[in-house]
Every structure is written in structure tokens, then in C-alpha cells.
């Protein structure tokens, strides 16, 4: 097996425009590798939602895309306030985003559920005050 390919990008807090750009850029990379459109689509959605979470809640952080021969892994890390009740946050429509963010049309409470729906494995390491580490895995040869 060859060395995994890793792309890394810094995320600035409250930079809403950049989130779409990162997702597009990561997706273009996956497309250029010849991966199936469905894989690219799911990865882009996960990247977009995870980055949005960093932008809205995390106060900036790092996004990483790792490609191996059998899987794509998306990692998002921030040193923000952490998620208080993960079970609640995984529910559709639940959002802790402040009003000014909701007024911009974001924070609909679909972020984490969307990530879960589009990934094969999802690990979240978080606690209040110690930031959030998210790792989502999409397998390349797994029939869904």
C-alpha cells in the first residue's frame, strides 16, 4: 500500500465564503483521482458541513483530507467550546447556533446529521472546553 495522500487547510472563524470553496477544492482533488462521483459528492458534503461547524462554533481550526487506496477520511479539528450533549447535537433540527448566524441562513441543525448520513464511519471526540475532533470515513468499495 502506498503512502496516504494528505491535504490540509486552515479554517478561519466566521469565514462563511471559504467553507464552500474548501469543499469544492477537496472535491476537485477527489475527481482528478478518478473516484466515483457519488464518493466525491458525499465527501464534499461532509467537508462542507464539518467546516461550517468550525466556522460557526469552533472559532477556527484545521481541515484534513486523507486519501488511501480503500477509503477517504475527513478530519476536522477545532479548539472551540466543544459539544455539550452530543446525542442532542446528532438530532435533525437541533442547533446551538446563535441568532445572528441563523439570520444568515445557517445553523439549521442539519450539520452533524448530514455528516452521519454521508459517511460510513463517524467518530467525534469532544467535551465542553476541550474542543472537537471529528473523523469521518467513506469507504471506496462499499456498496450502500
Amino acid at each position, binding site marked *: 500500500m502506498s503512502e496516504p495522500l494528505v491535504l490540509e487547510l486552515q479554517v478561519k472563524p466566521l469565514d462563511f465564503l471559504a467553507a464552500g470553496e474548501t469543499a469544492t477544492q477537496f472535491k476537485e482533488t477527489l475527481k*482528478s483521482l478518478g473516484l466515483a462521483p457519488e464518493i466525491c459528492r458525499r465527501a464534499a458534503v461532509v467537508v462542507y458541513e464539518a467546516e461550517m461547524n468550525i466556522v460557526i462554533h469552533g472559532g477556527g481550526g484545521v481541515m484534513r483530507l486523507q486519501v488511501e487506496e480503500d477509503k477517504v477520511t475527513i478530519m476536522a479539528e477545532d479548539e472551540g467550546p466543544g459539544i455539550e450533549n452530543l446525542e442532542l447535537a446528532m438530532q435533525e433540527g437541533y442547533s446551538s447556533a446563535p441568532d445572528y448566524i441563523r439570520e444568515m441562513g445557517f445553523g439549521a441543525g442539519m450539520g452533524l446529521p448530514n455528516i452521519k448520513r454521508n459517511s460510513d464511519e463517524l467518530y467525534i471526540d469532544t467535551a465542553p472546553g476541550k474542543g472537537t475532533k471529528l473523523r469521518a470515513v467513506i469507504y471506496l468499495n462499499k456498496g450502500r
Partner: protein
Amino acid sequence: MAHGVKIMEPSCRGCVNCIKSCPTEAMRVIEGKVRILSEICIACGECIRRCPHRALLLEEDEWDYVLSKRPMVVVTDPSFCAQFSWPPVPELTAQALFELGFEPIFDEYEAAYDVTALAEARAICSLPDTAKPLISTYCPAVVRLIQIKFHELIPHLVPVESPLETSIDLWRARTRRRDPVTLVSSCPARIAMVRSPVGRDISSAEFAISTSKLAREVLIGSGDPSKKVTINLPLQAPRWVVWAKTGGESMHVRNFSSRPIKTLEVDGLRNVINLFQEMELGKLKGIDYVEARACDLGCIGGIGNAESRFLSRIKIDNIKVSFDMNEGYQNKLESIYEAKIWSLRECIVPIEQMPLGEDLARAMERLKQLHAVYAELPHLDCGTCGRPSCRVMAEDIIRGEGSPDDCIFRLKERIADLSKEIYELSKRLVHTMTSEGKS
């Protein structure tokens, strides 16, 4: 694949303005002359707009040759009606064309555009929300953009034929005439549509010329038809005329839909691309239909027009259209709908890009090489290497179509290194000579 753009080599100075305007990075400058990678060109005409030396033109048929074909049956884009000093009413434009010996088939447009709008409205209403929004196939540059860059959106393209093609089919069916038909186009994409159609094997039109060519003929050859007839105010025009500007198609589709639908209109390639990127991320929930046009303000903004797009829009905004139809016409429309004449005969398929390698392992290796090559480039995207960006340059290099020395900055560095070496070498020589001289 024909792309509707002609390169006038003697006029091309290799200035790289055009290659930087291309939305699919389909242009290169090689040995001082521009080249188009036709397999990824969407025929939008942005390069023609940008060329300061008039080295890029519409690839239209020879005007004199087309003119020699009589009768000359013409199918003009609706935007053609807005090219003149008189109001954009087809009757007036038709009169001017007839006077010059051309034969417009405007009479077929009403049924053709109506059945198109009806088919689109019914397609929207028959689909579940998950399959929406549907995307209009009216702009051929947008269709090709999706085929090349937005494969996930292909199932969203509404499988409805261009009403201009449908008009020709209706005309042939009604008149049983076999005379050649000339499509009059305001953009390279529609010219490409005649040469290599998408969704059908062969176009119903035989020739393609630009709006500006025919408009010029009318401007110098005919009097103002509006002086010969009385024009009633407010100005009335058929429904299809509004398709010339962005929003016209959506209005038609909304009016023909059996239930309220939400449409979104977007024009100009930058906006279209941004919207499609957002759509791929699943951000357009709740929208039923997207009308996307490559040109600013819609077809009146096409590069092949004679009139200013701003004035064209004012003219079209000033006309009134009605969506009332009598029962007899409604029945006729229904029978044309049933005949499926509006339907695309072939599926729209993605145009696959070559991945970086044959399998994932090799593609990943190549991508790492690409990143390494890219890291050595100056990231100024100056275009001097003949490619639109350093990123494209790196891609070309690892595909074996270029060398890092094509980069003027890299070359400069190498010359600097070399001259330093020569300098040091020369000092050493002098030193030897003096020591020899002393001994």
C-alpha cells in the same frame, strides 16, 4: 466536437487574455498562437469577448454561400427581434426580413415555445422533491458546462429539446418543405448546437450564421417597418419573445404549471458556476426549477448580437405578453405535446475527464508529483507559460505536456544560477592566470 469559435491566427498575438477568461481552462498559447482544447470547450464565447485583437470570431457558415441558397429559411433566436430601432415585435422584424427575401418561420415559434414550457412544467410537477430542482436545457453552453464540470447535476437536466429545433420540426411537418434552414445565433454555443447537437444525433438546421450578420443586412437593406404600420400601445408581443432575456423562460413555465412552483434565474458564467457548486452541496432545497444562462442578461447578452444588451432589455421589458389561450389552441398544444416532438431523443451523458492515473494508487502518486511540481512554481498565474494558471501548468507537466522551464520565473532563476556559476568560474581562471604570471 465543434465549439463555434474560430481562431484568426494572423491576428493572434499570443497575449493570454483569452486563456485566463476560459471557465473550463480549455485554452493554451503554444508558440505564440492560441489553441482551444475542443473536448472541454463549452462554447460560451467568453474568450471572444476578451480578445483585444479580434483574433477570435464566431465559427459561422460563409455568408455568401448561405445567401446563395434560396429560399433562405431562417430560424432566429428570440433576441433577434430586439436588435433594431423598432419595437421587439416579431411581425415588424418578419416584415423587414421578407422584404429582403428571407423567410422567417416565426409562425411556428408560439407552439414550439409553448410546448417546451408545458413539457418543462409537467416534468417539474411529476417529480418528487428529491429529484429537484430541474435545470433548463435551453442554454447549450450551460448544458455543456454540466456535462464537463458538474456530472452530478446531469440527472437534473430537463430532457426537453430546444424550442428552436422544435420550431423547425413543426415547420417541416406542416409545410412538407425540404428547403435548408439557417439558424441565426447570438452565441457560439448555438452554432455548436447545429454542428454537434446534444440530445439528438443531427440538428434540424443545416446552416448557422450569427445574429450580427443578418441584423447588419436588415439594418442597411430595409426601411423601418414600424413607419408603415400603426402600432397599438401598450405593445403586445407573443410569449416566446421574452425568452430573449433571463427570466422569460421561468415566467412561461410558471404560467403553464398546474400548481405554484418556485423558480430561480441566474445569468453570467461566474454566477452559474457558483450556483451549481452550491447545488452540488445540496443547498438548493425548495427550488423547483433553475433557469441558467451563460451570458449576462440572457441571450440578448450573447457575443454575436448587434444591439447593446442593456437597450435590448429595456425594449423587451416594455412589451406586454399574455398567457391566455383559447380552447382550440389548447387542444392543438395538447396534441403536439402528446406527439412528444419536444422530447430529447438521446440521453445527455457526462463528458469524462482523464483521471491522473489508470488506478487510484497511480493517480495518488501522480497527484503527489503534481503538488511537488506546483510547489516549485511562483503561484502568480501570470499566463506567460501559455497556460491559464500555475496549477494547470503543473497538471500539464505531469501529463508530459510541458516542462518547468516553460515558466519564465523558473527560467530566470536558472539563468541567475548559471551566471553565478560562470562568474565564479571566471574568477578562478583569472586567479590561475595571475599565479602563473607571477611564477
